[in-house]
């Protein structure tokens, strides 16, 4: 929508959130309404992230774990200097390690990617790493500190859900279980745990090998264009991405790029992608187009061709915010999460209504069963005889 770029309050900026090392891009943040996306605030283990008047702020309880950034589907929240999912160069038989940055550097395996918190890894980040290192398992090191850490979950490793999610997707993509990312318990004494997560600085590797390997992999990451689905993925089953002035579903694109790459290395796997699906009940739909107007990414869009009009859906752009389902006045939209979608089904028409001409105002309309457009019908309704003739009204000025 043009207005998103016109309106001054929606100008693109990536600003620092005071009191934290988070960066916020208000243009990518999903609709700032009461029922809008709050995944970052929900993900915060310290309940330190709040949205007041549509602007995020953090309280001093913030542990800088960046788990909020991992929950953001559009990269509106990011942490400064968060490591890119770039694979270190590995010797044959080695595994790639991801370690918590609270662990003393000397206790981390050589070449390990150090993140503020294992929970700060998103599924897309993990899949991208898995894709880049090839058929070598990514091992997340659980130091047994999560239960005592203010950023951690009480009982389990905070990366559990993400690893389980990624595992499911990787299994679908044909990667055997022994090659998938997993959490391994390598406990360290609790006394070694520092109070706070080290400040967000560019992590510098100590070892020479680590330094060079990172340089190589970063260059490789740039060349492959980590966010371009139609880029050098080698095969192009996906429809072109059209996100005109809208929010870009960065996390979704990371996931799908990685999964398609992994799948291409494992031929013979069923060709479905774990994408969200939306269905519209054609009988209830009146083609108001509210779902397409509120959709932040343009996954739902109106189309109009040859005397018919309706809604089409691009599953690749969907960030599962469910705004369409909430806002449909006919309650005709149904959302289902992570369905096996074949590449042909990614972009498809959901409804098709004939376009009619209103007998009163000669405007075109669609989706309404009557002969007059909804506007004329409403105006007429002000005159319609109703049976109720003696309601209390009038002097009801209270």
């Amino acid at each position, binding site marked *: 929508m043009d207005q998103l770029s016109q309106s001054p309050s929606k100008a693109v900026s990536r600003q620092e959130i005071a009191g934290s090392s988070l960066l916020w891009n208000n243009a990518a943040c999903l609709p700032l309404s009461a029922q809008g996306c709050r995944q970052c605030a929900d993900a915060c283990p310290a309940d330190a992230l709040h949205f007041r008047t549509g602007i995020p702020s953090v309280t001093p309880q913030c542990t800088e774990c960046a788990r909020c950034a991992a929950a953001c589907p559009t990269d509106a929240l990011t942490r400064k200097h968060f490591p890119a999912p770039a694979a270190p160069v590995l010797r044959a038989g080695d595994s790639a390690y991801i370690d918590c940055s609270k662990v003393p550097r000397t206790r981390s395996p050589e070449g390990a990617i150090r993140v503020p918190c294992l929970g700060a890894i998103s599924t897309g980040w993990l899949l991208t790493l898995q894709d880049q290192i090839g058929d070598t398992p990514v091992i997340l090191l659980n130091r047994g500190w999560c239960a005592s850490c203010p950023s951690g979950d009480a009982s389990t490793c905070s990366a559990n859900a993400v690893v389980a999610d990624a595992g499911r997707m990787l299994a679908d993509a044909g990667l055997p279980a022994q090659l998938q990312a997993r959490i391994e318990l390598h406990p360290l004494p609790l006394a070694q745990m520092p109070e706070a997560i080290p400040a967000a600085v560019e992590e510098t590797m100590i070892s020479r090998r680590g330094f060079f390997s990172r340089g190589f992999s970063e260059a490789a990451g740039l060349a492959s264009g980590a966010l371009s689905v139609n880029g050098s993925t080698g095969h192009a089953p996906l429809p072109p991405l059209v996100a005109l002035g809208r929010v870009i579903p960065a996390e979704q694109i990371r996931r799908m790029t990685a999964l398609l790459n992994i799948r291409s290395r494992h031929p013979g796997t069923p060709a479905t992608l774990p994408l969200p699906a939306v269905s519209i009940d054609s009988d209830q739909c009146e083609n108001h187009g509210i779902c397409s107007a509120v959709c932040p990414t343009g996954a739902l869009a109106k189309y109009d061709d040859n005397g018919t009009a309706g809604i089409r859906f691009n599953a690749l752009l969907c960030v599962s915010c469910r705004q369409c389902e909430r806002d449909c006045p006919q309650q005709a939209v149904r959302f289902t999460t992570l369905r096996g979608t074949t590449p042909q089904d990614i972009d498809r028409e959901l409804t098709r209504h004939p376009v009619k001409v209103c007998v009163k105002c000669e405007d075109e309309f669609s989706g309404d069963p009557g002969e007059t457009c909804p506007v004329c019908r409403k105006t007429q309704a002000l005159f319609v005889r109703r049976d109720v003739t*003696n309601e209390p009204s009038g002097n009801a000025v209270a």
Partner: protein
Amino acid sequence: MARWGMVIDLEKCTGCQACTTACSMENSRLPGENWQDVLFYNEGEYPSGKLTWLPRPCMHCENASCVDVCPTKATYKDKDGFVLINWDLCIGCKYCMIACPYGVRFYAEEKQKTLPDVREVWPSKDGKVWDPPWAMPSHLNDPKHGVGIQPKNVVSKCTFCYHRVSKAPQGTPDLDPNDPKTRDFTPACVVTCAPTARYFGDLDNPKSYVRKLIAEKRGVRLQDHTGNRPQVYYLAGEAASIPETRSTRTKKV
């Protein structure tokens, strides 16, 4: 804190559309996009048919359904009883237009009904819908309250002339166009009404004339069964042009 409301005496209204024109000039409306309109209606069959009419501004409902459905909270109920749109937040989804039972919300479509398309004759350079030669002074533009020429792709509606009424001194019971002290704060349609069929005042102020009118002449509200509780009341007396069945009215005693 006031609760501004309007009373329209349908016995006095002649259907001259002066209010429509005044509103269009005051608020720089596109042709056909009349925030204040007069609806004409044929009632009865030949030979006893008659033409009746109904002036229809925004009702500025107490319990406005448009406010409830807005997904971005762009439409809101002001503390002084106005229902306004914040054009900076509106995404143009038109949900409010579906929810409004009175059809008083407008969206400038791509296709213009009347020719020539004035948006091409006077195109805007700063993202507005158009740039009419008779626009209101630019310092009055107030997108946070939906006053002025709207940007593209937003819904617009009657503001009860927010730019005038909000400047009235606190505690004013009535805004009377015949009183030089309050004339400048009175909505354009009320000022211009030749048969003085319109009254504007504070429905919460016990001293206000509109309260007295509604009580004495049994003011009615349109579509009261929807529970929207409009703040625009119609006086539908004996000789009024309101169709017999158009709104609920109290029985004659």
